[in-house]
């Protein structure tokens, strides 16, 4: 039997990073293959190669025995590959039928034949066994239904290979069960092959026939899911024993440093209250859209607050701008370091010093000698891998860029650190170094730290306490040392 998909030696580099190194695997019709790996392992790059958004530097892609020589997004769709991203690429103002049949609506003369469009939509929707009004606008549907619409769209295009990017991350258990039922049914009855990306290992065993593990852009494991244990998988994902991922904590917790009460924003947050004490690391967990980023930004003064009060060291603080937040000792690691954190075209030194220039001013002028000293000290202390302090930040890897953001806050001597996804897109080694730094800042220097993350293991492994957010509200406050993933997901998932 010809493979539905065969990848051989796929390699892809970006300036400074080898994202994929010789990735090979094949996929039979009707096979469900789980693709697992840590953030930065290369999953999303591989997915973009499958969708035709990136082209590989080296290697060969075959679809049903035929080599794809010049992959483009349109070409890959035409060959039956459908990639369904976590952030669904839908037009919220269009109807279900328009989305499902996008680009190929049936016409009568110059006009769209709506009756036929509805009929065709219902045909695929029925095949998936779910219920939706083809004239409903996408924006009014739940996330679970929107995913189904995406799958329906793939089917309407006769997709033979469907790539699902962490579809379960935003679903409740019942919805996950339904999704799995649909996936299994399509695989068994229609021979659709699936690449299922997830970092919930339980699902891997429940759903998949085979597993591919990526680490640092290389395939570490390729084989049937039967006979593997969760520990095996984690070991091959992180490349060492699980216990090593997070530093050991010996928290020394002091007085309350920051307290936010009744924070509301016009768009999302509803009466959110959190607090964090000196030396404490507090986690904020929630699914996409739960309001983690919005909460940190509202506290920091980056976005206008509708209502709410912030106290710092027990005193009311009015923080209407990041500038005001900084003078009160707040520091923010923004969610997206490239668009909000760094001056990419400027040097590493420029970025590190940019929030603490006052330290090196003598008689109104900057002392470049003192700057060099501070910057070199931080480069060494945070182990920022850069040729020198004058190198442009854009040439650094994600992990080292993130360390520049952190070095800036260390240099600015902030007392309360609000870190939004501090290890997003950071490779495994740098991740541990960032964890070590955060723990050191909390335990040795008494910083109060709030970490917002979409990675639950990170929150549970690093924090003392955590808040769970759902749709702009705090649904639980838990002890991170005793809480389990199930506990947290129970409060985080949509019902």
């Amino acid at each position: 039997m010809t493979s539905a998909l065969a990848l051989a030696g796929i390699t892809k580099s970006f300036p400074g990073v080898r994202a994929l190194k010789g990735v090979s695997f094949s996929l039979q019709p009707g096979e469900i293959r789980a693709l697992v790996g840590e953030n930065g392992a290369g999953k999303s790059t591989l997915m973009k190669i499958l969708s035709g958004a990136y082209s590989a530097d080296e290697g060969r892609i075959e679809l049903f025995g035929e080599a794809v020589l010049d992959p483009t997004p349109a070409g890959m769709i035409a060959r039956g590959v459908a990639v369904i991203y976590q952030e669904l690429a839908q037009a919220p103002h269009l109807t279900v039928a328009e989305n499902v049949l996008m680009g190929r609506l049936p016409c009568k003369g110059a006009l769209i034949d709506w009756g036929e469009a509805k009929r065709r939509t219902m045909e695929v929707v029925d095949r998936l066994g779910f219920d939706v009004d083809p004239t409903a606008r996408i924006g009014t549907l739940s996330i679970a239904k929107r995913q189904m619409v995406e799958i329906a769209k793939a089917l309407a295009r006769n997709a033979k290979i469907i790539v699902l990017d962490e579809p379960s991350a935003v679903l409740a258990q019942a919805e996950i069960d339904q999704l799995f039922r649909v996936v299994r049914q399509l695989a068994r009855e229609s021979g659709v092959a699936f690449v299922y990306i997830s970092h919930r290992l339980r699902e891997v065993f429940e759903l998949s026939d085979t597993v591919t593990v990526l680490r640092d852009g290389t395939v570490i494991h390729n084989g049937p899911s039967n006979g593997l244990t969760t520990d095996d998988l984690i070991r091959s994902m992180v490349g060492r024993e699980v216990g090593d991922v997070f530093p050991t904590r010996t928290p020394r917790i002091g007085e309350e440093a920051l307290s936010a009460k009744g924070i509301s924003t016009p768009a999302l947050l509803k009466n959110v209250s959190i607090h964090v004490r000196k030396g404490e690391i507090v986690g904020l967990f929630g699914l996409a859209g739960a309001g983690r980023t919005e909460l940190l930004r509202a506290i920091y003064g980056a976005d206008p607050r509708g209502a709410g009060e912030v106290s710092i060291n027990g005193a009311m603080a009015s923080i209407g701008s990041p500038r005001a937040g900084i003078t009160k000792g707040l520091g923010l690691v923004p969610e997206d370091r490239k668009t909000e954190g760094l001056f990419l075209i400027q040097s590493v030194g420029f970025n590190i010093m940019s929030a603490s220039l006052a330290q090196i001013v003598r008689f109104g002028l900057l002392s470049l000698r003192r700057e060099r000293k501070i910057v070199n000290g931080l480069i060494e202390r945070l182990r920022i891998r850069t040729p020198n302090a004058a190198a442009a930040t854009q040439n650094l890897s994600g992990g080292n860029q993130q360390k520049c953001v952190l070095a800036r806050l260390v240099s600015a001597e902030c007392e309360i650190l609000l870190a939004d996804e501090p290890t997003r897109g950071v490779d495994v080694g740098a991740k541990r170094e960032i964890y070590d730094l955060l723990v050191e800042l909390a335990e040795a220097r008494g910083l109060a730290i709030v970490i917002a993350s979409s990675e639950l293991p990170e929150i549970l492994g690093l924090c003392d306490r955590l808040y769970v957010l759902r749709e702009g509200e705090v649904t639980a406050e838990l002890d991170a040392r005793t809480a389990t993933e199930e506990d947290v997901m129970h409060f985080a998932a949509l019902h």
Partner: protein
Amino acid sequence: MKNLPRGTGLAGALIVLIIAASLISPHFLNPINILNVLRQVALYGILGIGMTFVILTKGIDLSVGSTVALVGVTGAVLMEQGVPIPLMVLICIAIGALVGCVNGFGVSYFRIPAFIMTLGCMVMVRGFAMMIADGGTVNPGKLADNFFVLGGGYMLGVPTPIYVFAIVCIIAAVVLSFTPFGRAIYAVGSNEEAARLSGINVPLVIFSVYIICGVLAALSGLIFLSRLSVGDPNSGLGLELEAITIAVIGGTSLFGGEGTVLGTMGGAMVLAIIANILNLAGVSPFSQQVVKGAIIVLAVLLEAGRKPRK
């Protein structure tokens, strides 16, 4: 080419131009001609420095040519009325600062695109100059010696504007490289949101660079007035393009965050030498415009080629 240190291309272009110029015309290396070229460098360079500040923040200021005209006309009227020179100079500088304020206010606080805001000001300011001069030119009478020296005089055998330009360059270089304000300018131009989240007062920085640009345009207007001895509301036409070209040739990125005073000085020299060659070779002023326009496009194209692509 991308691996060479920054400024290599510019320095190379300058050397090539100087050699070419001395081959084309034996008069080029004549000290009198050299001083003439340098005077030209100074006149346009001052505007180029102001423009560099604005472009560093990703902005643009199209009103500098009109400011030169308004300052020229106002200065002439004030002198005609017998206003003392120091007071006249102060008023003219204040006018430049005021135009900068209006531009800066619109761009930073009302978030009007710099191109539109300064285009509006360019037309308005030119209109004011016309109104003051009532359509004609203003003759301030014989210039007082202490004012004439600013544009037309010499010190130690070197035209005065060159000294003025040198002082402007030194101050500008110190501000950009050795003050927190200078760092803030680069930060805002590199990434406005990151600058805001780092606690930089972004609107104030943007506001300030337009004032700096306006003040330097006024200074340049005074030098022109001193040289021409007449206030002409039609003077300074197209100077904004000259200033932008100088900054861009000097390596200032129109995408913000990149550019140096030294580069802009080099840019001013390149442009002045090209104009001088064309003059010495007897090329008509109309053809010269074609060449200058082509240079702008070429400079921007080269810069676009230097940008890394995704």
